[in-house]
């Protein structure tokens, strides 16, 4: 277990270092496209708030998992962290200093790299594996001669578990798992300190998923890279992450060390998300959905707490005030005024009023 994770459990093994990458109060909004009719009738412009006051920190070598469902803002967050998109509010820092200060775009690209969900779409279909990797090395001037670059390409392929003899193949000749390995090799080519993986295994079959997750974990150990691992699959995130942030409607609603989050989930949304995972134990079945209702319209989120429209524990105050993300226990932050008032533990399954109300529904 890394020192980061133990520090988060309240037992610091070493003095906390400045985070490698941090986000402070990120906000990002997109204008919703209007049809010609709306322009003629001068309907007001509408905005979708994809990120709202998102702050997080990533320590060197740490793996931060980000979970949430479609439209929660996790991909927008990934794009902002990697510099592919700019937040409208807030800032992104590198080792405590603003990301852009004293660095060129290429330098920034060498710090943070991304791996995308769909390896079919994120590789150029007309470039061989060798060309894809060689281009990166050329752009970043990472090898002096053609021969050096060729050696480095072979080395990168071996790093991600591909035989160098595949290097003249085009992406279509590879399987999904092999393509995802190439996406990872391309990201590693510049020697990044942070790898942001946005649903990297979601398009793959279970047996191949496990191969790629093992590869990522192996690379993390060997190259000491910090990971931001984004997924909707809580089992995968649990396996790979030291710490997890749960997002709902553009906000972080809970963040904690992995085991703390799974053992003592405090936010009602986290609890619903955990309960909705189909368990492989057929004796534990229920006919009651973990969460009722639908995701609200993101252009018009509910007043007060954004989860108030679906929360089984909602009280009047939840609709009146937007709760802040507050630390309930060392390293365990929750955005729920109810949880704050009653402390996280009172929402635990045993001897909890709230739980019996939920199971009765």
């Amino acid at each position, binding site marked *: 277990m890394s020192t980061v994770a133990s520090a988060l459990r309240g037992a610091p093994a070493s003095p906390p270092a400045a985070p490698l990458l941090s986000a402070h109060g990120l906000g990002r909004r997109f204008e919703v496209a209007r049809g010609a009719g709306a322009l003629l009738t001068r309907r007001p412009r509408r905005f979708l708030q994809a990120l709202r006051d998102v702050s997080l920190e990533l320590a060197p070598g740490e793996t931060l998992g980000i979970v949430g469902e479609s439209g929660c803002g996790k991909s927008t967050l990934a794009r902002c962290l990697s510099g592919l998109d700019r937040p409208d509010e807030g800032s992104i820092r590198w080792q405590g200093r603003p990301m852009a200060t004293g660095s060129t775009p290429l330098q920034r690209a060498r710090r943070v790299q991304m791996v995308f969900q769909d390896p079919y779409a994120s590789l150029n279909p007309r470039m061989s594996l060798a060309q894809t990797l060689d281009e990166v090395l050329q752009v970043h001037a990472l090898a002096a001669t053609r021969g050096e670059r060729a050696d480095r390409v072979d080395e990168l392929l071996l790093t991600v578990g591909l035989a160098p003899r595949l290097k003249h193949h085009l992406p279509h000749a590879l399987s999904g798992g092999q393509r995802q390995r190439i996406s990872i090799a391309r990201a590693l080519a510049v020697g990044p300190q942070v790898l942001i993986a946005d649903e990297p295994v979601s398009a793959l079959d279970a*047996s191949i998923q496990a191969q790629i997750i*093992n590869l990522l974990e192996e690379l993390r150990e060997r190259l000491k890279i910090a990971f931001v691992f984004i997924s909707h699959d809580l089992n995968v995130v649990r396996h790979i992450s030291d710490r997890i942030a749960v997002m709902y409607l553009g906000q972080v609603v809970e963040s904690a060390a992995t085991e703390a989050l799974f053992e003592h989930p405090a936010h009602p949304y986290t609890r619903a998300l955990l309960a909705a995972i189909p368990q492989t134990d057929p004796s534990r079945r229920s006919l009651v959905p973990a969460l009722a209702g639908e995701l609200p319209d993101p252009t018009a989120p509910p007043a007060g707490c954004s989860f108030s429209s679906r929360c089984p524990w909602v009280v009047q105050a939840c609709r009146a005030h937007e709760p802040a993300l507050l630390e309930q226990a060392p390293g365990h932050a929750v955005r729920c005024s109810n949880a704050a008032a009653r402390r996280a533990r009172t929402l635990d399954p045993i001897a909890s009023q709230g739980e019996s109300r939920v199971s009765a529904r």
Partner: protein
Amino acid sequence: MNAAAGSSQLEVEDLRVRFTTPALDLTAVDGVSFRIEAGEVFGLVGESGCGKTVTCRALIRLFGGSPPSAIGGTVRFAGRDLATLDERAWSALRGSEISMIFQDPMTSLNPTMRVGTQIAEGLQRHRGLTAREARAAAIEMLAAVGVPAAERRHLDYPHAFSGGMRQRVLIAIALACRPKLLIADEPTTALDVTVQDQILKLILKLRNDIGMSVLLVTHDIGVIAQTCDGVAVMYAGKIVESGATAQVVNRPAHPYTRALLAALPAHTRRGDPLRPIDGEPPNLAEPPPGCRFHPRCTFAIAACREIVPAPIEVEAGHRSACLRAGEIG
């Protein structure tokens, strides 16, 4: 699964589906047999390309633009051999007694028709309802699948619905005529986990209300464990293991099922590496000889390369097509 012959809702025996093009000759489904009782939710689980979708499509003879060159074996629905049906009889059966929902709720609806009309269509056609009656029934059906404000929303077009709500609309269309069998091909794969949870529980509830049988196709063993009474595991066009869900999930008797379960992150301690299945599924145009799983199997012996294993009963109703099933189960 042990019911006497003839009493099952659906009986599939030795189903074979072959696709032939000038460049290619492959048998996507190769000798698949299973039966589904009345009111049973039966799961078909396997990875991409294992033939589970082709199996579904062969059951209702709907292949879209790329029909197979040959379909073999027998399919009996409520005792009737479906091979004897002509195109008219098929049209009367599909959407009425057998319905199907597909993986992608975004492309399976007609974008130019109000959802209420799409639900009412089948009722008018198959049940002879008047337009007015069908509309009332459509609204009732929309409400039954949990679409709020159904009396207003039946007038909306598909684009006005979220992914989860569109899948509910598809279920409403499929179930409007109260079919005896619902075939659901990866009905929740495109959906978020809390929406998946809602939809699966809705299907179970409607099964209880209507008493239909369900064939649920998925790649997710968790979904099988939470939803199905019986299950068959497919690999490379063949069923490798079948039985009651608890038997197959708790006591897997085929190396592939075991490996599939072991590969799940939930079944590995944090910090330990996952246990993937090495290699990739075979190309069905040139399947390996003997057992199709042998190149990836940790239990493989020399005989596995030559003998195509027949299903062996390892306990009542639980079969495994593995030469070493007795040692594994």
